[in-house]
Each structure stands twice: as structure tokens, then as C-alpha cells.
């Protein structure tokens, strides 16, 4: 698919129809972040509270266990860190070049 915003007029779907469900995935909202969540997997109990409380669906799971955080989309709100029952998520200041 062509990069959004770079299509010619003849490539834009008629009526402004959006053809790809869930296409916001290509918006990398991780650039908004000022704080970065760091998970201590030794303490994590895989209760999935962070997964259900995350506004940006950033917690990636596999077969009922927590795997990683999707940093491309994480906005760094910190809800996961404040809601984690075992406090295994820490928010650290984001450092970018």
C-alpha cells in the first residue's frame, strides 16, 4: 500500500472509504512518550492487569503470558505502572537522540 498522504487522486478510494481495518497501527504514537515502561519479568505474575488497563493495547501476550511492550505505540501514560499489583513495572524518563 502507498504511504498515506502520498497517493495520487486516482489512487484514493472513492467516497473516502477506509479499506484497511485497524490501519491506525501505522501511526507510531510511541513518539509521544516521555516516560518508558520497564518490566521486571522476575517479579511479573502474568496477571494481565496491565494488558486490560492499557489504553493503547501495547502489551503483547502469547498463550496467556506477557511477552513484551509495543514501544512503537506506547504513549507512556504510566497506568500499567500504577495499576500493577506486584509493582513490577517502572516508568523511567525517555531518552532519545
Amino acid at each position, binding site marked *: 500500500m502507498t504511504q498515506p498522504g502520498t497517493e495520487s487522486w486516482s489512487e484514493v478510494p472513492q467516497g*473516502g472509504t477506509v479499506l484497511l*481495518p485497524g*490501519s491506525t497501527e501505522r501511526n507510531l504514537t510511541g513518539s509521544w512518550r516521555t516516560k518508558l515502561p520497564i518490566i521486571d519479568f522476575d517479579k511479573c505474575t502474568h496477571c494481565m492487569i496491565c494488558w486490560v488497563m492499557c489504553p493503547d493495547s501495547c502489551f503483547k501476550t502469547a498463550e496467556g503470558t506477557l511477552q513484551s511492550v509495543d514501544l512503537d505505540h506506547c504513549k507512556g501514560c504510566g497506568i500499567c505502572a500504577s495499576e500493577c499489583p506486584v509493582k513490577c513495572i517502572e516508568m523511567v524518563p525517555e531518552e532519545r537522540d
Partner: protein
Amino acid sequence: MTLKLRDLTLLDDGFESGHGLCAGCSESVIVRQVLLALANEPVVALATGCLEVSSTRFPDTAWKVPLIHSAFENAATSASGIEAAYKALVRKGRMAERPMTFVVFGGDGATYDIGFQWLSGALERGHKFMYICLNNEGYMNTGIQRSGATMLGAWTTTTPAGDLVPGKPQWRKDMTGIVASHGVPYVAQAAVHHWKDLMTKVRTAEKAEGPAFLNVFAPCDRGWRYEPEDTMAISRLAVETALWPLYEVDDGKYKLNGPRHKTRPIIDYLESQGRFRHLLKDKEPGVIEEIQANVDREWNRLRERCGLEPEVTPETTEAAVSAD
């Protein structure tokens, strides 16, 4: 399926990341919980609001389920039309019957004010749909204006706090009560932090034979002036102070689902947010007492409807903390 988070992680939640809602917004959390809880195929109608403008910015959509948005006020009417069309198509044999749930997401502006009579009409006609009100107590999308859901004393851009006015001068509508008065099969109040309660209510609402209404408390870090990470804590405080009791009205029968007792005074809630900061500077004596009186009145009325005794408020913050 039982409501276990580990099992739910195996499902696709139908709402993709990369949407434009603020960091710490509770609306996408509610949407994901609702879509995960549904057993049937959903068709979503959206009212105008934060959720609509942030999740469907052209040329993108965050939704992976069928979705319609037409105007601010008529999301309930759109859902009515979809439901009627579905029934007609099945009746005429042009579509196979299949389990479907028609869901509306509207903000408090679209529910309490602008879409009020349209919602009332849809409830009266008895369409089988589920209306979810994402109640963030104001028109946050257009820049934090007051709505019928904004509570007394709250600062908004149309009720600025100053020497003459202490924030919003009026209390708020009891929208859940108003909808319950329509005599629809299922009405409930839920809050974003209590995922299990919310998802259970969505499942009950899905089975209702007629309209179902869920008023969900959705704290807004931008408009309420608090740090994004406190969204769930604020929601929890609203339930503990009985400002937002968790209850349901199933076929006219009231039932409390949340805490049965009020454990904190309203001042704890007011202190947690910048929009009430002016009340705490002691410039406006009487407003906090008036808020507490309103909360007590509504709480005791609800307790009476649930067949419980009235209750007095814990006196001070210190008492509430030591009781914990």
C-alpha cells in the same frame, strides 16, 4: 466463556493501537473491554466525540469491526436503523440469521444533552441494542466545555472558576435513573477500573431482550487536570466516595454491584483533580458541603431502591484513612 484475563488475551480485541486518544485516556480501555466481552458479532454506531475523532482520522481507522458514524446526536437512531434493517433482511430471506449485537458508543455530550431525545426515542421503540455512554463529564473533544454530566463546582472552559462563579453552578443529571425510568430491560452503571464488573454487565446487556444502557465512568486526564497514570485511581475514588456507585437495574430490580458502603468523603475525590482546585482554597465555602449533600442524597436514594438502610458519610479524610 468465563471472564479470565489470561483467556481473554487469546482473543482479538477489535480495536487497534495507534489511535489519537490522549495518553492515559480511559475511553479506549472501555471500548476494548466491551468488544472483548461480547459473545456475538458486533456492529458499532459511533456518536461524535473524542472517541470518534481520535479513532477514525482519515485515512485511517482503529476499528476492526463494522462501524458507522453519521452525526453527533443520532447514534442511537443509526443503531435502531441497523437493527431494523437486519431484521428486515432476515425476514425477506436476503441474509442468514446470525447472532449480532448492535452497540452504540457515545460520550456524555451525545447521551445527556445532544442525543438525549434520540436515545429516548430508540429506548421507547424497544430496539434490541446496547448503548454505552463514555461519561467523561464534559465536551472534552472541543476543549473541555460543560455538559449535563459535569458536576457541581467543576472548572470547565465555559464555567471558569473566578471571583463570581465557583465553576459549574449546577449539579448533574441522573442519566442512569432517567434511562431506567423508560422501563428498558437492562440499565447499569459501571466504571473503567473495574474491568470484571464492566465486562459482566456487557454480557448481561447482550442477553437483554430489548434496549440496554450502560453508563460508564471514564476519567479524562486532560480535562480533569490530573496526571495520566492516575486514571484508574480516580475512577476507584469516585466509586469509594459513592459519587459513582456501581449498580444495575435488571428488569426494574435495583442491585448494588460495587461496594455496599461509602468509605470516603467527597473531599478526597475533589483533592485528586485540578478542576476542583479553586474549591479547596477556601474561597468558596459551602460548595464542597453542597456537593457532599448531593452525593449523600443520590446515594441514599439508590440504597433505598436497593432495599438498604440510609448511610452517613465518614466525617474527615483522616477518619477514612484510619478506617482503612
